[in-house]
């Protein structure tokens, strides 16, 4: 038989367990801030998963191969946000467009520390500086281009486009804007909209293939637009060549397989070769008349090529989004398509930009 005294002892013993539980600390892993001074940089914007808020920014030094993950979080003690889509770098700052957080962050070019933000945006995708103080912001849902003052990150005006917008390219005073998404518009998504960056007016539109997703300019001052053909493979994907002065469609090269979904049109530093992703990585001369049949880089088994970038050294960087749930990687290839190295990135490594 136990005495009540002992029972009380047992209870206090057990109570200590309660206290132990209560006192369990809740420390969060807060990685230390990084020393700045990004050199020979490749920045990788990791999209993260939709509505999860696990976007991040990866820094890679192309010379030393040093990799720093979570650059934004480490120097600002806050997450980059939900579905970071793109990065743009000007003379002093880096602009990070975070689509589902409706935000663009402006951070220091040397250490990625916070300088400002614009957050009254609907569904921002890309930012393009059009002069020293103004930038255009494209939008997945909104039928306007937002003009942003990059000094104070305030919205200056909206340019009605009548369509959604995606990638942009400035040639002279004109900005060529791809209308990739059919969302929230009753028109076909097969146009390049031309906006004058001084008058801030739409001055023309050029019909291309369906779903124009990316745009580059070659050494001959011709624009190239890659069109993926529509969400349900409505038409053959195509590569369209445009004269930016006359706004004329010069040629439209169709992909033979209607089920293809080519994306990520890029150009090399000499601007004489086009690169794009169509499961594998393809390289094509700007003088070619047809889509190349063989890729320069094959996507191997268990690899999921997601985004492409060509470095100032003419090397090819391809991100591997893995299974979209785990951290991805970036593969670095020589100009001839030989694998040089790989490095880790965050979840769904996407848009990549270089900085020296």
């Amino acid at each position, binding site marked *: 038989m136990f005495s009540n005294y002992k029972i009380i002892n047992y209870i206090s013993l057990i*109570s200590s367990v309660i206290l132990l539980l209560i006192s369990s600390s809740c420390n969060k892993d807060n*990685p230390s801030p990084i020393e700045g001074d990004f050199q020979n940089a490749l920045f990788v914007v990791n999209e993260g998963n939709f509505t999860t*808020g*696990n976007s991040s920014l990866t820094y890679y030094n192309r010379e030393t191969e040093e990799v720093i993950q979570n650059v934004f979080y480490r120097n600002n003690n806050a997450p980059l946000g939900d579905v970071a889509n793109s990065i743009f770098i000007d003379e002093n700052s880096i602009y990070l467009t975070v689509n589902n957080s409706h*935000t663009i962050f402006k951070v220091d070019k040397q250490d990625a520390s916070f300088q400002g933000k614009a957050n009254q945006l609907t*569904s921002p995708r890309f930012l393009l500086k059009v002069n020293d103080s103004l930038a255009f912001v494209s939008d997945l849902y909104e039928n306007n281009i937002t003009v942003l003052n990059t000094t104070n990150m305030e919205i200056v005006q909206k340019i009605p486009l009548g369509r959604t917008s995606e990638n942009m390219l400035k040639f002279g005073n004109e900005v060529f804007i791809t209308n990739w998404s059919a969302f*929230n518009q009753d028109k076909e998504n097969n146009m390049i909209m031309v906006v004058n960056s001084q008058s801030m007016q739409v001055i023309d539109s050029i019909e291309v293939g369906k779903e124009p997703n990316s745009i580059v300019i070659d050494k001959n001052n011709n624009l190239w637009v890659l069109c993926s053909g529509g969400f349900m493979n409505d038409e053959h994907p195509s590569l369209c060549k445009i004269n930016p002065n006359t706004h004329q469609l010069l040629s439209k090269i169709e992909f033979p397989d209607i089920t293809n979904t080519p994306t990520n049109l890029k150009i090399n530093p000499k601007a004489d070769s086009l690169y794009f992703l169509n499961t594998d990585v393809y390289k094509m001369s700007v003088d070619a008349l047809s889509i190349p049949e063989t890729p320069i880089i094959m996507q191997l088994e268990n690899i999921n090529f997601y985004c492409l970038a060509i470095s100032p050294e003419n090397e090819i960087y391809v991100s591997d989004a893995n299974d979209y749930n785990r951290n991805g990687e970036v593969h670095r290839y020589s100009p001839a398509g030989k694998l040089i190295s790989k490095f880790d990135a965050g979840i769904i490594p996407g848009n990549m930009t270089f900085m020296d």
Partner: protein
Amino acid sequence: MKKVSFYIIVAFCLLVQINSVQAQMIYDTLYLDEMVIKSNYIDRNSSIRSQLIDTLTKKNLNNLNLGELLSAESPVFIKSYGKGSLATASFRGTAASHTKVLWNGFELNSPMLGQVDLSLIPNSFFDEVSLDFGGSSMENISGALGGAINLTSGKKEHKNKIELSQSIGSYKTYTSTLAINLRLKKLKSSTSVYLNSSENSFRYYNNAIIPAEWQTKQNASYFNRGFVQEFDYKISDHQSLSLKNWSEWDFREIPQIMSNQQSGNNEEKQNNFNSRSILSYKYHKSKTIFHIDGAWFYSNINYLLKTTTAIDHEDTVTYINSTNVSNSGFAKAGVSHSFNRGWKINSELSFSKYVINSNNYQSTKSRDKYDFLIKISKDFSNIVMADFILRQQYSEDKFTPTTPYLGLLFKPFADSDLFFRISANMNYNLPSLNDLYWFPGGNSELLPEKGVQMDFGFNYSKTYSESLNIDFDINFFSSNISNWIQWVPSDYRYWSARNIEFVHARGIESSLSLYGNLYGLFYKLAIQHAFTKSTNESEKALEGGYAGRQLIYVPINSGNVYLHINYKRYTLHWNTQFTGKRNTSLDESTLYSNTLPAFSISNISLGKKFNIKSYELELNFKLNNIFNTSYQTILWRPMPGINFEACLSFRI
């Protein structure tokens, strides 16, 4: 010797607890001040491992929902998107669709999603909740690879009674419940009404934005209304008929994550209507029970997402209005008979039909399912009890393989309440209709998920004196689930469901409770702990280098402690729940977004009963999260800090 063994057991429990463990059990019925208390109860006449949630604690949380009850008082981890938001169960390290919830024997899991939103089940709508662990669930249902949660109503004492309670809490939270029990000769009627609303506008420190600041939670309100009406008619001494209906209207706003708080151009909400009816006939004579039941469950879920441009809130850019209607019809009949020499046979045949109308399917889809059960139990001279179950399902024009369960219970010493349990079983979980037919990505070729499970444990109870009783239970389990369904990126632009994962879940569940009466003071102290290791061992995981890593949102350690004290007309209830760190990503690195830190939450309530003539009043004050812990169960979904509730109940 007895003292020594007691010390060893207590020391062991503490050790296990410190290393983070957990368990459950219970078994005792105490009569206190006209109150029937059923404590964590494990049936000692069977190898089936079923835990009854303590009615003391259920009563204390009667104005809350099932998700909140289970996270406070059970070893099941509840993945909650916030108060009033979606809450699903992860039982023994499995997915939400592997926990089946049954209301009086009929499955509440959505035929579309395969899971149940526990935040939409008010505790006041059922009298008892019990958990069937792993293979033990096969007695009641197929496919519960984690386990089953049984909600039972109609066990209220049937004297005439009216009970009205009103609670008021922080963030403009109001809950009203009304229960009326009436008896008219052979007819019993039981009515339960529930009204619950909250603005849910708690303050939290938003460190997911720059600069970090204190914010008020926006777009998180909810409003639930519902009733349960039950009629029981005693036809004769051996026959009874019952009719039950549970109807519920739920509305909730769906808030954005913390990093997306700064442009209020989202309107996201959900409206549900559910109506569930059961008609049962039961014949019970000497050693034979026969029952025949029919049920019809209707569900209408409307999801609305409307976003506008950031500057013009009249300019709509996204509009999704999705309505999903499901009708589920059930019919079942069963008979059980106890024979001489300890033999008992139970057999049941059930038929289920599900019809879904959804604008996410290409056409109306339906599923017919037949399920046959036979259970044979044998008692070998009160020393060994054996249970053997066979289940056979037929669905989508196919028989799933027959699934067996074999369990044994030993009582090695006639004079000691020490029991050993061991069991092994197979189980198959059919894919949900979304897995099969969602457009695009549904895969009509999916196979059922297959579970092979083993359990071993022991249970010890002892009454030392009126002032000290002890119950201890520990259980080890191992479960291999193959053909685990996962949505993965396809060659096209959408994701598609595939049978690709192989998950090994294993762990230890333990519980200890001490209770007794000390000079008129009733106390009960209970500790539960679960250690769960759940890892993906598929070829894909091995190739990807993440085999052996804990699945996301499954804590390795979780547990809870509560202390309940009753003295005269006063009640004190303390509860602490502990949740270990959880992976939010399959990657090893400990970056901020890959792991959520451990947390523990403590709540305390103090109550007093008053009598005014023949009426009884009860006043309760509750402080939740008394240490104002800042925590998240899901990444970037904030939870409320310290908050209070006051509840006044009135009984006739």
